[in-house]
């Protein structure tokens, strides 16, 4: 796992990445929710499969609305009933609390 040092971030008002402690606590939870750590970057990934396109896109709509609300957007790809999502925070070059929050929301939205 790439080590991430948020301490290096020097810009004021910037989103802070997760601390090591937070990662140690949160990543296992995410992993158990089937989020995977992406190789080569500090991001998490998960794929969702729905019954059909409509459900997939409905899900995406929900996520989109939330993303707008949070001002934090996912990287995602959709083909028919499949949605692949990668979460990472550009501002801090890695995972931040927003990713965690959004991931949680995404999981819930996928159950609807």
């Amino acid at each position: 796992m790439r080590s991430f040092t948020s301490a290096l971030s020097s810009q004021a008002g910037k989103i802070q990445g997760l601390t090591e402690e937070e990662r140690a606590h949160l990543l296992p939870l995410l992993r158990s929710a089937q989020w995977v750590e992406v190789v080569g970057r500090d991001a998490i990934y998960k794929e969702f499969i729905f019954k059909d396109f409509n459900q997939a896109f409905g899900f995406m709509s929900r996520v989109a609305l939330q993303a707008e609300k949070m001002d934090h957007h996912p990287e995602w790809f959709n083909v028919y009933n499949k949605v692949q999502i990668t979460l990472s925070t550009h501002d801090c070059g890695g995972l931040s609390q927003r990713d965690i929050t959004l991931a949680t929301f995404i999981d819930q939205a996928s159950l609807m």
Partner: protein
Amino acid sequence: SDGTKPSRLTALQEQLIWALLESGLTRDVLVQAMGELERSRASAGAEKPDRGDGESSEEGEMDFPPPIFRDLDKLPPEEASKLRAEVDQLLQEDPWHVAKMVKSYMQQHNLPQREVVESTGLNQSHLSQHLNKGTPMKNQKRAALYSWYVKKQCEISQQFTNAKHGLATVEEQGEEIKKGRRNRFKWGPASLQILFHAYERQKNPSKEEREGLVEECNRAECLQRGVSPSQLAGLGSNLVTEVRVYNWFANRRKEEAFRHKLALDTPFTNQPASSSNPTLPPSPEHGVKYSQQISCDTASSARGSGGERVGRLVVSPVQLEPSHTLLEGHNLKPERVSSGGPLPPVSTLTSLHSLSASSASSQSLIMASVPSVMSLGESSLLIGLASTQPQTVPVINNMGGGFTTLQPISFQQQLHGSPQQPISQHLQSHMAASPFMATMAQLPCHMYKSDSPQYHSSSLLSQTMVITDSSSLGTLTSLAAVRQILTADPEEQSDPPLQEDSLHLQPHTPVPASSESLELYPASQSTESHPSHLLSPSPPDISSYIPTQMVSTAQ
């Protein structure tokens, strides 16, 4: 936001609304649809008299006001309101009381917790704890639970009714259309008793004998549910069939063989190799450990097990909650002859688990799904106990689930608190004085048809697969990658991070039927909208796969 004023619409909301309108949706239809949606949601929410009732709200920003759980869609007719009224009533009652009712209903009909979880969205651990231990549950969630309960009762009685009238039970009745599969079959205690008795008589019954057992078991199961033995349809997914009986016997035989093998492997000198010897006391040293074990466990009471049981050890220490032993009429433990010396028969886990009526809610014993569902309460207790155990016994097959895997057996043990059955026989010959050792020794129970409902096939892959080399991943990945390419828009750039590393095991439902697209997903269990595992490293580089795959996938 309420969105009552147009100005309060967010930009995206506006976009979406316009999109809807432009798609042909008229304002009227939209408003009407909204009304219906709101009604169904309101009814789901309305069943909670007062929201924050004594339970602190943990809902962070993540909790969505509209209930996330898939509340049962109440059918329009008055039936729906009748059901809702019932739910309301239940919500007024003492939660623990109702929990007991629901739990025993689930036991009676051998319903898996999984089903409840899937249709209510409740957390399985929370559900289990609520039902078994009375852990508080918020009204909104209880409403979901009760709604499922009430609806399920209808479904089941319908199933039985249809059976009575010779009607073919409509598939959709029992389950949401969304759900692609039926519940996993589970042996009921009544059937198990019959089977074990038969096993003792004859380990390898003929087809006729098996068919006889099928009849006998189904009859017993119906009786347990209080219905006429001829209404088989009501048993639903728990209907006993000849194949299941056949498998059961095959598994028992394998178990025994394995047990025997274990006995040869790790002989424990202190314990005389005996077949059935329920009263065999543990050897001195073991006994010492054992008693220490017992004294450690404050929860253990003389669980009606009687003296010999205590000697077994396995039972008491693991005593969980009183409620766990609430078998209420389902106390059936077949006698098991433990052969194979000091080692606890592997069967214990499964057989015990199968015996456990009350495990209906715990679902913890399916060997195939070893690390599966363990209620928190049990696990914490077990874990606590485990830590006091010195490792004197080699763990034969540490499934890596650690404590969780131990649970079933121990749990089971104490569940069948009824003293009559010397189930403990199995355990008496266990390896160390510790129940954990005993249970761990039983872990290598690979005999079972591993139809683990808990596992998504892809979950078998450890997350680290992503990071490891691709050589271990076979065709599937490439195929998956190919499909991605084939069906994806060629112009897409950013894409499908499918790479050699990605292994796609998840069964797949609809695939756009293009001439090029190919169903690459194994048709095994299908989980509706459950996210699958797709390991995918970042940079997409699929091109290398195309050539080979194209050939094989060309249609």
